[in-house]
């Protein structure tokens, strides 16, 4: 057994929590890791209280990227957007509980990158919006 693919990670990969689109999401963002084609979309529902009442994700890709998205959704429920913006990458890597090489760290952090973009209310990366609009 390879310690990179611990029970916990494979479980989140095979049985992702909070998976699926979220109707009525107040925030959502889609991003990809061009190197390997990993994709994540994050959906947030922020209620009157300013807290995340619900969070879903969809995506495809490697076990690391999908498990980390699943773990992340568990971590943020009930948090405020400001709290989400403050999550650092160490927290995500800690949740995974494994040591990753630089290329695989990118897989692990795609979900956080996507989540933060959603939390900031982006719909596309700065600069891309103009590009898309121009087409």
């Amino acid at each position, binding site marked *: 057994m390879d310690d990179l693919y611990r029970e916990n990670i494979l479980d989140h990969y095979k049985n992702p929590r909070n998976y699926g689109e979220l109707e009525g999401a107040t925030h959502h963002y889609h991003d990809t890791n061009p190197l390997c*084609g990993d994709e994540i979309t994050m959906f947030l529902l922020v209620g009157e209280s300013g807290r995340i009442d619900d969070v879903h994700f969809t995506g495809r*890709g490697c*076990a690391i990227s999908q498990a980390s998205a699943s773990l992340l959704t568990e971590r943020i429920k009930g948090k405020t957007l400001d709290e989400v913006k403050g999550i650092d990458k160490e927290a995500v890597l800690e949740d995974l509980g494994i040591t990753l090489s630089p290329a695989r760290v990118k897989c692990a952090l795609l979900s956080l990158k996507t989540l933060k973009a959603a939390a900031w209310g982006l719909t596309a990366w700065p600069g891309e919006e103009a590009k898309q609009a121009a087409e």
Partner: protein
Amino acid sequence: MAVTARATGSAATLDVARIRQDFPVLSQTVHGKPLVWLDSASTSQKPRQVLEAMRVVYEEHNANIHRGVYEFSERTTAAFEDARAAVARFINAPSPREVIFVRNATEGLNLVAYAWGRDNLRKGDRVVTTVLEHHSSFVPWQQLAQDVGAELVVVDIDDDGRLRLDQMRAELEKGAKVLAITHTSNGLGVIDPVKEVVGWAKRAGATTIVDAAQSAPHMRVDVQDIGCDFIAFSGHKMLGPVGSGVVWGRAALLERMRPFLYGGDMISRVSIERSDWNELPWKFEAGTSAYVDAIGLGAAVRYLEEVGIDAIHRHEVALVAHLLPPLLAEDGVTVFGPHDTRDRVGVVSFDVKGIHPHDMATLLDREGIAVRAGHHCNNPLMTRLGVSATTRASTYLYNTNEEMDALVAAVRKAKKVFGL
């Protein structure tokens, strides 16, 4: 699905054990396991002979080429131009004047798009290419076509991954200004019948550019036989150093083209008002060439000639023939591209259901096996195959049947880790 036995018999012609002794890196270990290098389509390893040729320059007579009248410069210049002659012979170019040293296939293909394309492609012209192209062969023409308003026609593959020749022929018969085609797919390992396709393109009056990055290292490439106008390939994929690459073009075209990069060496005279260009090939080699890398490529080409490029091709096809049956027999394995060994080189792209290629590559790495996972700079092909990435094992003259077995065993082990 049966693997043809065609090439298996002749594999014995390569003394792989002896060859492996020439490659220092192959005796390294990874995660405690002996290295199994199955990523030669990305970059090959280098034999001692190549490293030694480079060492000799740096330690014994390093000097800038062409511009010196002293001994070191003369020796280095002679070695550099010898390398050019070796490359010309290797691809059967009519003259070394037509062999231009560049960094890699990518630069060579861009050189053609810039120095020929910008002055010749016009609004409404048709650029015919294929869904098998590497980004380096595809994107320069995609961008230029957009800039000038030309039409980009992308010919499809059939379900086996082979080029749709019927479609290609029909598109070329409609007329074309440019054909940009890969000789061998780095994603699927299929060989395109470039000679035939180039013939059709010529009849349509098109200028033809062949991307030989995956063919020149692994099989005979004869530019006169193919009949194309330009060809490009990378030294680092064919036992040479990084920083060495070649674009070959017909002298008649190269002479009419504007230069690409401007600067030292590519010039015959400069006044404040105008510049005149040097003769071929130097007109296209601005600034200090990576002359040591080019000399390394010369040594690589001589090494390949000594082993025999046809024998190398047969050996690699035999490796594929050895690998495919057990790999295809594994539950959940999809192999992209043809399942036989006809018109094929040693590239095997596959997927294992339930394991993302990235995870597969990581798990194989733990077994000492280096394979590539990703889109292989082949986005349009991935889209066509309906996947975002594949795992790709690619072979070369130094690989063995035992390494193929190790790959299959490691795939099995990966499935176990994932509980499949």
